[in-house]
């Protein structure tokens, strides 16, 4: 199978996030970016499929800070090629970014057709759309999201997606298709830094220019702000011993201990 995996960078929410001076966006200074978690699962599922059924995996990403590290990591994990799309505005909305991908992928000689395009089912900044369905529609391909596993079968794929309560739904999907992956069958593999460094020496990231994107429907952000909860938790002060003592009191008062 020929598989493309789309990777994107998102802010690491473990870090403190600040609103920019315009009051409508994130302050990008000092922001630490990491690869979108479900994109990492999409890469893992692609590598699992390659191991089982053969074929190639190509990691594709729009230019972003630290994206080279992410692409070299993908190569170190077992991807065959890494392609970076350069020249697109890095503050694009998800819908605009999908527009760039949809315009660029067919223009790069040998990327398409691919049997599968896998990407994460969502990202924490997907305010105006999800990449997988937007791209599927633009390329005229079938789409399924919240995907948990993929099994090729007679030129099609049997794809399981997550419902609630641990229930999966199995679908027969015509190929080629674009899938939004929620979780791979196994946790994303770990790759030692030494192997990534080796990939940096032995492999190359191909760069291609971004094609002009079509116009997307517009929306207006009024303001962005940190949520101010009505009922924030009562914070327990003191060292761990004091906190533990207070929790014990709370549980005892309620007959829970």
């Amino acid at each position: 199978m020929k598989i493309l995996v789309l990777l994107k960078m998102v802010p690491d929410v473990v870090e403190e996030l600040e609103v920019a001076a315009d009051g409508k966006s994130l302050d990008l200074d000092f922001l630490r970016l990491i690869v979108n978690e479900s994109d990492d699962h999409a890469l893992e599922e692609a590598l699992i499929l390659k191991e089982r059924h053969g074929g190639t995996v190509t990691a594709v990403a729009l230019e972003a800070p630290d994206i080279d590290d992410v692409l070299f990591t993908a190569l170190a994990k077992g991807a065959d090629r890494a392609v970076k799309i350069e020249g697109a505005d890095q503050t694009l909305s998800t819908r605009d970014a999908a527009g760039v991908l949809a315009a660029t992928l067919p223009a790069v000689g040998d990327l398409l057709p691919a049997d599968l395009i896998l990407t994460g089912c969502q990202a924490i900044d997907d305010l105006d759309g999800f990449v997988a369905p937007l791209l599927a529609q633009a390329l005229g391909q079938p789409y399924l999201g919240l995907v948990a596993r993929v099994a090729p079968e007679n030129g099609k794929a049997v794809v399981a997606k997550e419902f609630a309560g641990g229930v999966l739904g199995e679908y027969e999907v015509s190929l080629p298709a674009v899938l939004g992956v929620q979780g791979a069958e196994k946790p994303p593999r770990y790759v030692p830094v030494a192997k990534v460094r080796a990939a940096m020496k032995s492999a190359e990231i191909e760069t291609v220019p971004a094609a002009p994107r079509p116009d997307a429907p517009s929306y207006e952000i009024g303001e962005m702000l940190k949520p101010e909860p009505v009922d924030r938790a009562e914070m327990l002060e003191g060292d761990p011993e004091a906190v533990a003592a207070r929790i014990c009191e709370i549980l005892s008062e309620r007959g829970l201990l």
Partner: protein
Amino acid sequence: MAKNVLVMAETWRGGITDASFELVALGRELADGLGGKLGVLLAGDGVSGMVGELGAADGVYVADAPALADPEVDRSCRLVAQVLEMDQPQCLLVPLSNISWDLTGLLPARIGAPLVNFCRDLTTVGGGIEATCVLYGGKMEATVQVAAAPVVFGVLPGARPADSGRVAGSPEVKALKFDAGDATVAFLRYVEPEAGDVDITQQDALVSVGRGLQGEANLDLAEELAELLGGAVCGSRPAIDQGWLPLSRQVGKSGITVKPKLYFALGISGAPEHLEGMRDSELIIAVNTDPDAPIFNAAHFGSTEDLLEVVPALIDRANEVKGG
């Protein structure tokens, strides 16, 4: 021009979901605020008899066909596009649930309409609608307005109480003709989860762990605390994705919804997908070193001390209390 509101009522395995009734309640408010009508689209197999549960709506578009028995995104997109054409609403509200997820993503792309995602609230402002959206895992919120119509709002669970939208009545019924056609994505079957050793919905106390637990080796601490409290251990998505716990212990969007008397959230950030599975717990105590973690907005009590220090201290003290 009247500004109508349309709600997608999803059905799954024989009934209208709670998420749908939540949106009916929200849609009713918006329609009243805009001076328009509330339409609901009810699609599924054998759903005609459920119209009486949608009394809060002015009208219900009913598509009742065997081909609509299970969620199939191609068919739902065609059906909704048909109703949007007929109804010409200002907006369409879709539950951002696993059932309607694919429709929320694909429909706007297909019909060229704007989508506003992750909405936790919608209000009418000066003849239009303003959405409040949860971004960056719950660490930021944005208010969003869209001029074009129709706009699709993907609404997070919990926007309104489901019971507010579950109103008996006899709204006007408009039966839709539905041509099943071909599907490039065809439903085959459901795969039920393997029964876990413990049913976490039946526990009075749950000790739930997330990424902040740092490693499987620390799971023993959570197990010991759960045993002391007479409960069980469960987890958020990262704990399951890392293989620390089986799927049967996952709380949240793709997992299980729980309402225990006590929910300990250890090292859990509190992304919307997790909150929807536990926010109705009677008592929530959260321990997370990040003071900005959204879990503290859902918890009753919180601590930013290191859970690897708090939990052992708590176990010691609880043992003393029980022993004495």
